[in-house]
Structures are given as C-alpha cells and as structure tokens.
C-alpha cells in the first residue's frame, strides 16, 4: 500500500543560527519508502527542498547558517513515497526565534571553599560552545541542581545570567552531585550537564554537630 502518513515531530535550534527538524515515518506499506522534506519561506513563492539530510542523522533535515533566517516563517512538510504513491505530513509552521534549545553548559567545575570556617561549594561553568553569548546574539540563564549522592531529591537553584554559583548549608562529610543547565532568554531548557561529584570535608562546629 502507499506509505503511511509521516509526522514532523520537532524542530530545534541550538544557537539561533542553524536548526534541525526531525520526523517520524508512518508505516512503510511493506515497500521501500523514501522521505523528502519541503518548505516554503514567508513571502517567497518558491518551494525549497531540505538542504542536508545527513548531518543530523536519520529522518532529519539540517538547515545550515546560510539556510536559516530568523523572524521568518517556515512552512514545512515531509513526503513519504514508495512505488504505490506518496503521503504528505501535516504542514508545520516554525520561526527559529521560538525553537531555541541550547546544548548543556560546559566545563562544570565544583570547588570546596570556606567562609568563616563554614565550607561552601563554588560551582562554575561555561556557556555551550556554539552559543555566541559574547556578541549578545543569544542570552542564556542557568539553573544549578545539587543532591547528596545517596538521596533522590534534587535542590534546584536559579543562577540568572551568572556563570558562578555558591551553594551553602552543606552536610558535613557529604558527597554531592552537581549539574547545570541553561535556557535562552526565550526558549527551551537544555539537557542537564553530566554529573560532577564533590566531597564536603567533615567540619565540626558544635560538640555534637552532625
């Protein structure tokens, strides 16, 4: 039978400069099926085809810088074709300004410092490499989460635009896991960074402190 209807599942831009769309194939009707992505750009009559089916892997289309415009509507559809016919997905309208989802922050460092002999953690990180925060083209805010290794509940802290965050009130001798994520001013949260482990030294203030 002709192929089932494919579905455009999502489009994301990691740095407001390029973007990628992914689709879910429908049933292949038992026959070899090919997929092609077409799009219209606001106030341009031409129908364009996906410029790059490879870079982002299977069932995806990658739009490089030269193929990416901001504040311009893209109307995108995917067509599945086999010997017996073609089936179009529902069209999806996107504007890159609304689909920014950065990669996680990088170089997450956690050091144990002391303030009036109370230990605290200084967490520092860098923005994801591809995101050009220096020119201001993208503005990132960050969240830090921390939990004791053996526990399940995370404590989440909003760090604003800073790249350093101090965490106080630590369990003496505890081993903590720290992760950081980021979000553009107007967009989606990244994944959490990989875990960074840190051990807090034992500190005794009062005779029976824990």
């Amino acid at each position: 039978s002709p192929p089932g209807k494919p579905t455009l599942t999502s489009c994301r831009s990691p740095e407001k400069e390029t973007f990628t769309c992914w689709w879910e194939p429908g049933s292949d009707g038992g026959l070899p099926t090919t997929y092609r992505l077409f799009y219209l750009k606001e106030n341009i009559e031409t129908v364009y085809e996906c410029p790059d089916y490879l870079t982002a892997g299977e069932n995806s289309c990658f739009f490089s810088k030269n193929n990416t415009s901001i504040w311009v509507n893209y109307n995108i559809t995917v067509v599945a074709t086999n010997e017996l016919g073609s089936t179009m997905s529902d069209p999806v309208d996107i504007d890159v300004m609304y689909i920014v989802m950065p990669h996680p922050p990088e170089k997450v460092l956690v050091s144990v410092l002391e303030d009036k002999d109370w230990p605290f953690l200084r967490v520092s990180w860098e923005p994801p490499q591809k995101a050009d925060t220096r020119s201001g083209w993208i503005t990132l805010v960050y969240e830090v989460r921390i939990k004791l290794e053996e526990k399940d509940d995370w404590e989440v802290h909003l760090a604003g635009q800073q790249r350093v965050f101090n965490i106080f009130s630590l369990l003496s001798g505890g081993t903590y896991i720290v992760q950081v994520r980021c979000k553009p001013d107007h967009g989606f949260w990244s994944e959490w960074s990989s875990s960074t482990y840190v051990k807090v030294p034992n500190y005794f203030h009062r005779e029976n402190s824990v």
Partner: protein
Amino acid sequence: PIGDLLDRASQRSDKLHSLSTTLTQELDSHFPPIGRAIMPRPSMCHTSSLQTPNDKEQALQVSESDLLSLARSLLKSWADPLVILSVSANTLPHPAQSTISNKLQELQEHTKNLGDGLDVLSGKMGPAAQTVSFLPYSGGNDIGQDRLSKLANFHFLLSCFRRDSHKIDSFLKVLRCRAAKMQPEMC
C-alpha cells in the same frame, strides 16, 4: 553611562517579549483552529516593510545607531495598534478576556516605559540614532464584526507584536554586549 541604560533597556525589552508570549499562550488556550486558517500571513504585519537583519551575521554588521533606530522605529510603530488591541480586548469573545485585558494594559505600560528609555538613549548616541522610520498602521480601529474574525485579527496583530518585540529585544541585547566590552562577564 550608556552601558547601564542599555542593561535596563534589555531588561524591559526582555519583559515585554515575555509578556507578549504569555498573552499569546492565553489566547491560544481557546482559539478555534479554523481561526488560524483565516488569519492573515505574518508577511502582512504593518511593520514588515521595515528592512531588518534576519540572522546573526547581518545583525552583527549593523551599526549601533542603526540598531537603536530599528528598535525605536518598531516600538513607536506599535503605539496606535496597542491602543486598538487594548480597546478590542474589552469586548473580546474569549473566556480569558479579563486576563488578556489586564496583560495588555501591562504591555502598554512597558512599551511606553521602554520607549522613554530608548528616547533618552538615542539622545546619547548621536544624530544617526535619532532617525525613526514611520510605519503607519492602516488596519483601522475595528478588528472585525463577528466572533471569529475578531479573534483571528486580534491574534494576528498580537503575533506581529510578538515577533517585533523579539526583534527589539535581540537588537538591544546585541547593543548591550557591544557596550559591555569593558565587562566581558556581562555577556
């Protein structure tokens, strides 16, 4: 100092765009799908004639005064349409009508406040930043008679504002980081 003023302006433009996003989400919570079909295309926004950069390379090549001039032109072009949106919000056939009406009030206040700030800023950035393109809104005071066209035209106008407020926010944040050259950690 200009850097300080640009920081404040970016805070306000950030808030302005966020407000327009929450407003759009309120509207979308009860928006007839058919309304989307009859809605005018984004290219028909009254500000679409203004040539603006459309990607990072283009934006980073625009001079400071031109970026500020673009931001001011876009913002000023919304003074009248926001009044029309605000008036129509009072009789909008939508379950969240009063929330939408209040949010629009807030949007107008923020737009005026940001406009005041950009006027002060342009005064400090030389004559070229003073030029403002005139982008008249010719849509008239009435956004439609029947329920569907009222909702569709309201949504269209708001979607245009949402896009323009994102442009304003992006331009000001690029300006802010250029001004912050002395404080790299700011950007």
